[in-house]
């Protein structure tokens, strides 16, 4: 579906450029964007390392995005997820959703994010400020719950 565009990339996400690209034509009344960032965890964290399953990562995100276009009247949906080493303050993930109405844009963007958290093949590992490698970030029950809530709609 043409309305959906997905990228899985190592490099930085150009948020200003992506925001410019998300500006709609005459049909869309609303664009919601989401950017997820690497937090510094109070100075504890040196970087997040994100491992991904090449091929499946893009495919899984595309399936999530296309499901969103079936549930809401989406005019455009751009999804980007980074992998590799990501420093504090850097963006990890970006979603832009254009729709005729604001509620659909908010819900579709939120839906895509909830599924990217727990249904797309990415795994985070911490690298600590003291130079050691921390553990793999554990999946949160709250992320599964966030994705599951959409099944109840």
């Amino acid at each position, binding site marked *: 579906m043409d309305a959906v565009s997905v990228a899985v990339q190592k490099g930085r996400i150009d948020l200003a450029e992506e925001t410019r690209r998300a500006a709609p034509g005459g049909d869309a009344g609303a664009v919601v964007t989401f950017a997820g960032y690497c937090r510094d965890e109070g100075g504890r964290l040196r970087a997040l390392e994100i491992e991904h399953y090449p091929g499946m990562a893009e*495919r899984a995100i595309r399936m999530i995005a296309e499901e969103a276009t079936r549930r809401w009247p989406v005019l455009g949906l751009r999804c980007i*997820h980074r992998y590799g080493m990501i420093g504090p303050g850097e963006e*990890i993930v970006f979603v832009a959703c254009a729709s005729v109405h604001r509620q659909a844009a908010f819900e579709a963007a939120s839906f895509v994010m909830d599924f*990217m*958290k727990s*249904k797309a*093949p990415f*795994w985070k590992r911490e690298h600590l400020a003291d130079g050691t490698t921390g553990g793999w970030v554990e999946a949160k029950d709250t992320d599964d719950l966030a994705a599951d809530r959409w099944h109840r709609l």
Partner: protein
Amino acid sequence: MKIVYFAWVRERIGMGEEEVALPAGIVTVDDLLHWLKGRGDNYAAALQAPEMIRVAIDQEHVPHSQPIGNCTEIALFPPMTGG
């Protein structure tokens, strides 16, 4: 058949992928996980709680009850933590 591993499953097993010939009797994903678990300490460490392991067949997420069938790539990995 190629099996690929990610994140701590990959680390514990000690490799990112391998070719395996499945013995007769391995029908479902669950059968595969239990067979792999018996192949050595590294596999046992990775698969000690098989119910936690997520599985994709040819890049599609599947339940453990899924028959493996005729596929080219099976992926084993921990719960996903993207976003």
